[in-house]
């Protein structure tokens, strides 16, 4: 039904487009096998003269790859869980409960999405590194050794709530029939039980979408992680660690390692996405429809 509508030139255009999309990734993979002297050559070749698997060994050695992976993973998993929890709690309240101030809260959360992130960048940095009662800080945030930035919390806490997540969950929960909830209430179920046992399972598709979205975004986030890494080098994530490997003084020497590092950081998340894209796309398209 669909296919016979598409003339051949549709396929040509899309094929060309796909090449433009995919080629940089291929170039990245092939470049990661080139030797440093090959980067100095004057002509471009897609394929390396010889495959230097050594780049990968060196990248793993110099990158402290285990630490970077661990940080990236802890960060992404924690942010995802926190956002899922906070978004579904707030989304449920805004979709299904009646209480004074509801409109104000909803408007407020919508408006948070309009604020550009850089506006909070400087003060949030200051707040994070002087956060009270963590990282050795006293109640006024003084005398400490980095507040939240003393531990991986510095990478997580400032991202634990997402206005978009709340909005997405609210939109999804509005479509849940009130009758289900009323029936449960008449049976005497407590609100928290209703939330955990009835609402949450029904919102699984939206949760899956949000989870993939948050996981990928926090895996890839760079600027904040870069700043946290300056404060505490134990907090380097994959993108930061790789960018730091790139030497400002002597870039030629480190170029192959950077490419190898990029492949290591990029391919797992691409595979994950390709594997899960069905859930992601479906959820995003539903959100887009509303």
């Amino acid at each position, binding site marked *: 039904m669909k*296919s016979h509508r*598409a003339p051949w030139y*549709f396929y040509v*255009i*899309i094929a060309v487009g*796909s090449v*433009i*999309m*995919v080629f*940089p*990734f291929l*170039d*990245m993979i092939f*470049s990661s096998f080139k030797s440093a002297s090959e*980067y100095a050559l*004057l*002509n*471009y070749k897609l394929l390396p003269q010889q495959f230097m698997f050594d780049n990968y060994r060196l990248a793993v050695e110099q990158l402290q790859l285990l630490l970077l992976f661990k940080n990236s993973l802890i960060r992404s998993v924690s942010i995802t869980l926190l956002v899922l929890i*906070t978004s579904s*709690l*707030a989304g449920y*309240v805004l979709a299904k*409960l009646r*209480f004074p101030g509801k409109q104000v*809260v909803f408007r407020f*959360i919508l408006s948070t999405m*309009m604020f*550009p992130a*850089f*506006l*909070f*960048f*400087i*003060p*949030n940095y*200051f*707040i994070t590194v002087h956060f009270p009662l963590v990282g050795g800080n006293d109640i006024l945030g003084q005398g400490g050794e980095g507040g939240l930035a003393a531990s991986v919390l510095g990478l997580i806490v400032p991202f*634990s*709530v997402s206005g978009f997540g709340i909005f997405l969950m609210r939109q999804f929960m509005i479509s849940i029939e009130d009758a289900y909830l009323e029936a449960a209430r008449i049976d005497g179920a407590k609100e928290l039980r209703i939330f955990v046992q009835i609402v949450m399972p029904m919102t699984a598709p939206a949760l899956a979408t949000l989870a993939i979205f948050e996981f990928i975004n926090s895996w*890839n986030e*760079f*600027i904040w992680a870069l700043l946290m890494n*300056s404060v505490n080098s134990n907090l380097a994530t*994959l*993108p930061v660690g790789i*960018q730091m490997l*790139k030497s400002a003084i002597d870039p030629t020497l480190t170029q192959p390692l950077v490419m190898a590092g*990029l492949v290591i950081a*990029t391919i797992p*998340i*691409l595979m994950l*996405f*390709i594997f899960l*894209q*069905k859930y992601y*796309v479906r959820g*995003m*398209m539903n959100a*887009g*429809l509303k």
Partner: protein
Amino acid sequence: MRRFKFKRETLLAYSFLSPVLLFYMIFLMIPVVFSVIISFTDWGGFDFASMKWVGLKNYRSIFSGQSSFLHPILTNTFVFAFGGVAISFVAALVISYLISRMRFEGLWRTMFFMPAVTTVVAIGNVWYYMYNPTNGLINGVITALGFRPVNFLDDPNHALLSITAVSGWMGIGSAVLLLSAGLKGIPHDYYEAAELEGAGQFRQYTRITFPLLKPTILFVLITSFIGGLQSFTLTMVMAKSGGPGNSTNVGALEMYNQAFSFGNWGVASAMAFVLFVVIFIITMAQLLIFRKGGVESY
């Protein structure tokens, strides 16, 4: 009884909301106030004792003739945002329509979405090498075709557009996704009816698809334009502090460098506010235009 239940519901609502509200208190409300204060001071981010109140000095220096903030930095910011949106939007408009009528729609969509799930550090570095005038992929193709190589990132006439193009390339996937969703919302019988009347592909597109897709189109345009105005990671990865000269420098990057490279937190905060006001005005203007254009829901 009823009143009791009402109060209980309120209590429940606010206890469910408490983590979110607490978060916004700490990481949004306090920061905004804090930011306003910093923007009127000379401060390097160390102890509060070293904070000096300087009134409007930071704002005045931003708007002074010596400053490069308004031009070229703010101009660049607009070119970057507008160019990126234009590229990704036009491409996505075509692509989403084509793939919606093709086999393997999901496969194509995934292909175009790949950059959106890749860290900007990877994208920036890979394109940086691809743009290389002596041994990069793109100039490899250009010279193979017999043309002179182009200094994409070293020539100030090309550098900003080169980075903007990458930003547009990155944004295609998300725009395709949203537009695909919009296309799915258009009932199939419309097209069938049009086909019966003998309307071709192009006519079908201009008469049916485009008008019905308008709300989605406006949504994509507004969100990606605002996103483009604030983004600076790509510029940072590809051009460090926005060179050559200031030719690729954008507002948020200048703010970042003022604060963390030079220790001028006051000037940086003032820049953040100026940029925020600009973005706010643009957003409001766009909303207004949408209302007039008959789109109520956004």
